[in-house]
């Protein structure tokens, strides 16, 4: 059974109490999960320009929180082109990045420059 984005955010990000625990994938942690179900994804946490970033994935779909606030999907999404996962944002639409962290840092830089608001 796949979880919806909302369920994922509630269980995996918004409700995660301990950063250390959330930083590691925990196989089979979901109640009712089958043996073949994918484990909850890891949360990549880092700080850029003083902003607290939590970045995780549900399959290929990136899920981004900035200072505890969940970003709309168009702020960070991904496409798979030729087998390679690339990250995109409607806020910085003229580039694709293979590195999600790099694009997130550029989004924070863009907001700092007041090119848009996240």
């Amino acid at each position, binding site marked *: 059974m796949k979880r919806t984005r909302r369920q994922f955010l509630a269980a995996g990000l918004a409700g995660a109490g301990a950063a250390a625990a959330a930083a590691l994938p925990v196989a089979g942690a979901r109640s009712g999960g089958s043996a073949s179900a994918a484990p909850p994804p890891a949360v990549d946490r880092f700080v850029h320009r003083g902003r607290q970033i939590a970045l995780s994935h549900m399959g290929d779909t990136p899920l981004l929180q900035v200072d505890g*606030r969940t*970003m*709309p999907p*168009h*702020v960070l*999404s991904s*496409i*798979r*082109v*030729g087998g390679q996962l690339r990250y*995109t944002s*409607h*806020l*910085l*639409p*003229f*580039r*694709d990045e293979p590195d999600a962290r790099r694009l997130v840092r550029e989004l924070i830089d*863009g907001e700092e*420059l*007041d*090119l*848009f*608001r*996240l």
Partner: protein
Amino acid sequence: MARPSLYALTSIQWNDVVRALNGIKSSGVYDAFTRRHNQAMMAPTLLPGETGTQRNVAHRGPAFLPWHRQGLAELDEEMQRVVPGVRIPYWPWHADGSGWRSARVWTLVGGNGDSRQSYRITTGPFRSWTSVLWSASSGTFYSRAGIKRQFASSGAMPGAPSMAVANYDVSPWSEGSSASQSFRRALENNHNTVHNLVGGDMTSGTSPNDPLFWMHHANVDRLWAVWEERWGAVYQPVSGCAPGHNLDDAMRFLVAAAATPASVLTPPAYL
């Protein structure tokens, strides 16, 4: 009247361009172009179940070139209400190469932003403009004083794409199309590089805040016109792509609701 090169304008002709742009900026007409571009950017345009693309109304798909050609025509029309006969000139960025940071364009439109002022431009005839920007969380526009440019510290302006590519576009009609087989894809790639090299407001969905956007796109359109001279006013696909990107589909977020790729295939004249 043919669309002129920015580098071939007399000072009188350039002053007419500035007067027309300032006229539609002060009336609010110009900012509506910026909003429509951002709205087009925010509107995914996919077939049911299609993945592997972030194609939207005006980018990452076949309608990229027709949508912006129609936008240029609509901008010309508004500018001509202020100064009859004027047209937005094209910036031949493909000729500026690695020396682009000191190219003549910046003496006309203002230069790089001032790092002490958050990269706001402080020179040129548009230095007092305001910008309309997008808030992702609220889903609304807001305004900010000034235009921003933050030149990339490395990288050269791209050249013109190969005119030897015979296909206007190829499946999957997106950023996944091969740049060696799709003229549209190759030209859109080069266009993306220009946006990112100039930096600042040119990197975002509200990039028309910088009037250089239109001079950039006029050159993109001119390069398409050169390709059309060789291969004819042909367009792919006729059908099979998401709505808005097929030959006779209506293109959204333009002034002309009836504009289609087919309606703009005849290239405008260029000097």
